[in-house]
């Protein structure tokens, strides 16, 4: 029997699917600017769901504030900063991929399937905001994030992959544990910010040396 959805749930579900779709588009993006754009879009979507949950939870001020902060930092500042990073590199450089787009998508599909299958088996839905889709979506986004980082051997692509992965977490946090105190949410945000800055330092160093953010050179340490 089909589960009866409430309006907020339907809204959140839709956004969740959008998040996933947007993330999947990373597989076919060929230039770094597209990656950054994808990330910005995802930030807005995450903010939207945060907002939605905040409204449903009885206009919880912390979630609403978090949504705003997300838009400010993730949706605006971080993409700007990254575009600044990219400016030094020729943006026409095509990002390499280990396998072709179709195969990547098939793999991603398989991972999403796995995520859904496993999360359905996990009896864990009391008090959650999205009873069926929450964990499945979060896990799917984490898995796909991993897959992007694995399949795109480029430093910036990997950073973006990590950030989208973290978006998945953010989504999970908001839907699975909407009560998680506000300060934690803010810390998560700040953390992402600092992490990106540090990533940025490293990427810059890499670019200075090799004039590109490819990480094929990162194969010296082995054994």
């Amino acid at each position, binding site marked *: 029997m089909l589960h009866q959805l409430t309006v907020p749930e339907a809204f959140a579900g839709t956004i969740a699917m959008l998040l996933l779709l947007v993330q999947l588009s990373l597989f076919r993006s060929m230039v770094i600017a597209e990656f950054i754009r994808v990330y910005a879009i995802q930030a807005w979507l995450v903010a939207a769901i945060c907002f939605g949950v905040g409204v449903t939870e009885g206009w919880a001020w912390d979630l609403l504030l978090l949504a705003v902060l997300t838009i400010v930092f993730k949706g605006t500042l971080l993409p700007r900063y990254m575009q600044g990073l990219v400016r030094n590199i020729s943006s026409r450089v095509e990002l390499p991929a280990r396998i072709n787009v179709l195969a990547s998508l098939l793999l991603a599909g398989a991972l999403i399937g796995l995520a859904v299958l496993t999360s359905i088996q996990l009896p864990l839905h009391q*008090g959650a905001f999205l009873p069926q889709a929450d964990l499945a979506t979060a896990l799917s986004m984490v898995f796909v994030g991993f897959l992007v980082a694995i399949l795109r051997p480029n430093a910036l692509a990997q950073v973006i992959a990590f950030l989208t992965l973290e978006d998945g977490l953010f989504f999970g946090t908001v839907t699975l544990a909407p009560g998680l105190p506000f300060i*934690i949410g803010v810390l998560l945000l700040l953390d992402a910010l600092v992490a990106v800055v540090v990533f940025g330092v490293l990427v810059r160093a890499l670019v200075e040396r090799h004039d590109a953010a490819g990480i094929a050179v990162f194969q010296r*340490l082995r054994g």
Partner: protein
Amino acid sequence: MNAIIATAIAVPLVLAFVTLLVPSRIGRVCTAAGGLVTAGCILAAVVRTAAGAGPLDALSAVFLLPVAIVYGTVGLYGTWYVRVEAIGVDGDEAYRREFLALTNAFACAETVVPLLTNLAGMWVALEVTTIVAALLVRLQGTENALEAAWKYILIASCGLAIGLLGVVVMYAAGTGVLPAHYAPSWTAYMSVAGKLNQDAVRLAFMLALIGFGTKAGLAPMHTWLPDAHGAGPTPTSAMLSGVLLSDALYVIVRFAAIANAAAGSGLTLHLFFVVGLLSLFVGAFFLLQQRDLKRMLAYSSIEHMGLIACGLAFGARLAVTGALLHVINHAATKALAFFGAGRLAARFDTREISKISGGVAVLPASGTLFAFAGLALAGLPPFGLFRSELMVLSGGFDSGRWVVAAVVLGLLVTAFAGLMRWTTRVTVGSPPADMPCGERDVGAIASMFLAFAVVLGLGLFVPPPLRVLLTNAAAIFAGRQ
């Protein structure tokens, strides 16, 4: 009491800013003093806790000790290191200041982890350590350093993301049982352990094991570890290996304690077996063939983390106590080993094992202590690691899992074969013809003797307060409070 703990956190925090601003020759003395002060504060807090008067619980106290040991000695070691090893990207003085500041910041973050009760807070603190450590690792600016830093931060961040998912799931497990908007602290969970959603708790532990296991260097999430340990500055390697790994392990142990209390120990212990044996396996077989001195020590860390996980997995009181003691012993011994390796590498101007020989003859004090550290890491008496290893194994046989215990023993022997192979090559024999012999760097030698005192002392005798702490901590792990 709280003032003591506050001091322990505040000193490195303040020093982190101070050392960035003052000349490095002052900064390094400040760091040395700060390290000792922090170590003293932590020790005082731990002793009080053991006496039953402290604000900490036994498990936190046990995991604070590595910070005290390593940060206390790293500062002293730094007085020599900062003077000699200044080959950074940003020019010598800038490099030195940056190094000191980051080291202090790193120490601060590492001190904070065991003191927090909030699981999410722990996650944040660990993430901070990742960031600081990544900066430290790339500080020398070489190609290898950059690569290692990149791998470290990417893998650790991705791993920690899964760890955060664990925290979130744990939070979900508590919703409904605990009040709305509750803080996800382990004290809260332990107090209502019986009522938590069992599956959620188990799942949270599983995700935490993967996530924080990444930072704890447990296989198969360990891949960043040898690179980071190998490429970073020596004191950083010591702090990474001695403290950071145990901090991450601490978080896992907290999750495990909750899981044990809420849902029984079956799954936790078996999963500890899986990662423990895998880590032992990886550590042992990688140790057999190594070319780089510090990388070798890194694999030894993986091996020891695996052993600790196995000790926890055996579940028997003796084994868990041994595993917790092993954490402390490992911190002290690994610090000593890295210090020695750093000294040797500086004198021979290389980290390649094949180019170093006669270490004992060249550096009578540090070389000898490095040899002792190697022997201790390999698990020989009269050093502390032998005692804790024997406790773990003995507990393993005691728990009736003698097949696993025998496998652990076999892997330890393999690791021994690897570790001793290189320790012997580096320290035994006669040095190259034109190599000057002898040493006079008081700070570095003092720091090594300090660490060695712990290594040897804990092998000969476990002070009664520590024994009380370990027993209590083992009880906490088992889910009893």
